[in-house]
């Protein structure tokens, strides 16, 4: 991308910089065609709605259902018995608490070790740069289930099994790709001229980073952090491998809860477990939808 374009992207799209030219007038379309198009569009939207939201709503209904047999569209009996069963479970709140303890720590730790690397990847042209970037991505492609036994061996020899740090490392592994690739692209999109200008007026390198570079890259870094948070939050098998006996997080409980209980109770668990993610993402939706994502995954 040219310097102008990249600057435009950083500032939020050249669309904001367009000249106030009135849109050329268009003649009235054939009304039949536009009505037809609209109906088709409407149908598509309805189908999309059913496809995307339907399963969740269906599950939500089931959480309150007593007796519900095919082909009724709604339960015959409504009850909160399922909820009572769930709240009697002592493990649920403990593991939820743990999940919320680990995910932020992992995200920040990941940021701490990956952001400097991202900066290096973006600013310094050292040999093997692309290879390293790609290998960070490639190693995640190996199915983890095939690695547990060897990983257990490594963790044991480093005395990390069953420790807080060990679980942090396991969850961190899944976030490295997000925290290196997206910030690398974000840093690359910031023109060096800005940094050089700051340095010319006497600012030290750290000051330059925190006052010039970081604020411009912040939206993209925030996106990376949110994706990392979710990745750490959802990490199940590896956490169980390392975390036993003291650190069992929510996703690990999830398999047990959803598959082991009768459907009504499982539906209640499912609703409860979706709540944290929903809350989180609704808070940060604007930034994630903002548009920094595509550049994040390009290799330059």
């Amino acid at each position, binding site marked *: 991308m040219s310097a102008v374009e990249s600057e435009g992207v950083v500032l939020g*799209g050249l669309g904001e910089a*367009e000249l106030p030219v009135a849109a050329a007038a268009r003649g009235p379309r054939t009304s039949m065609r536009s009505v037809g198009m609209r109906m088709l569009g409407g149908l598509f939207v309805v189908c999309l709605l059913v496809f995307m939201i339907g*399963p969740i709503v*269906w599950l939500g209904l089931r959480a309150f259902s007593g007796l519900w047999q095919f*082909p009724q569209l709604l339960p015959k009996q409504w009850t909160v018995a399922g909820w009572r069963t769930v709240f009697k479970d002592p493990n649920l709140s403990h593991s939820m608490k743990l999940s919320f303890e680990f995910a932020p720590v992992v995200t920040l730790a990941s940021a701490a070790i990956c952001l400097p*690397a991202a900066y290096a990847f973006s600013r310094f042209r050292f040999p093997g740069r692309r290879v390293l970037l790609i290998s960070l991505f490639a190693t995640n492609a190996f199915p983890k289930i095939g*690695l547990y036994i060897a990983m257990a061996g490594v963790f044991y020899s480093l005395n990390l099994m069953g420790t807080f740090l060990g679980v942090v490392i396991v969850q961190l592994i899944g976030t490295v790709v997000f925290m290196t690739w997206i910030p690398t692209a974000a840093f690359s999109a910031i023109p060096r001229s800005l940094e050089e200008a700051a340095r010319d007026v006497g600012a030290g390198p750290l000051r330059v980073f925190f006052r010039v570079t970081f604020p411009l890259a912040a939206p993209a870094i925030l996106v990376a952090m949110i994706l990392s948070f979710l990745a750490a939050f959802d990490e199940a098998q590896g956490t169980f491998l390392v975390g036993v006996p003291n650190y069992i997080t929510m996703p690990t409980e999830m398999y047990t809860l959803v598959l082991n209980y009768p459907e009504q109770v499982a539906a209640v668990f499912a609703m409860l477990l979706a709540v944290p*993610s929903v809350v989180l993402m609704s808070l940060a939706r604007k930034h994630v939808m903002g548009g920094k994502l595509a*550049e994040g995954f*390009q290799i330059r």
Partner: protein
Amino acid sequence: MVLPPVGVIAVFIGFPVGAAIAYTLGKTGGPNSVMSLLAQHEHVAKHGVTTAPYREMLSNPSVREDLWSTVWVTIVTVVVVVLVSWGIALYLRLNDTWLARTVSGLSVVPLFIPVVIASYSIAIFWGPDGFLRSVAYHLGYHGFPSLGFTLTCVVLAEIWVNIPFGVLMMSSGLNSVPNALIEAGRDSGASMPRVVRSILLPMNVIPTVIVATFTGIYVLGSFTVPYLTGPTQPNLLGPTMSNFFTAFSQPQQAEVLAMIVFVLALALGTAYVWANIRASKRAGATS
């Protein structure tokens, strides 16, 4: 400065991957001795390496079925996700109405639902007592197929799970095309489809490739979705791998399957890297 993340990955992932590869070639000592202890029907390399594990798995008919299912489910998912993401992102780009924003908001919902719950709810929704079947029954159509626990359900669920990333990526890519360009195209008399074809499409090859490869890699290695929504046989390689590890106590064979998935994923990854390098070469290496 680059060392920390690379180091972490190298020690905790790279080394186990190396050990796993050695194990599939028959090396059962050293880091693989624990796995070997638990293994039945193992092939041990007397000297050098052996390809017997690979030959055994690739000549196993149900494994071949699973491999083929994994491939076609991946292809179908990728195609549908790319098309739907393009559709939604384009709609949002060209009409900034509340409806468009609602649609794109909805399409990102799956990102916030943990995948275990998503799979579980989709299996129920499309299943024998699910929503569609009940609605069809009420409309008089008693023969509506139950799609729960079929490969079709796996495809539907994988699409559901991967649409958010596709939509985000495509709208991000489409947003970086300045309005001025689109206006210029319209002003010169081009119809909207022509604008899409000649301006938006070529400028967004990279995001499309990203969506395709990331979705593909995800589906290839997925376990939870096919485990909860898939049929008994054939299913994707993820649950099969898990069965070989746990139920059949055949870790070596399971590692072979893991390698197959890894190689397929790497192939996709290579396509992605190649596309990127070509694009950056064409953009004239200004960075």
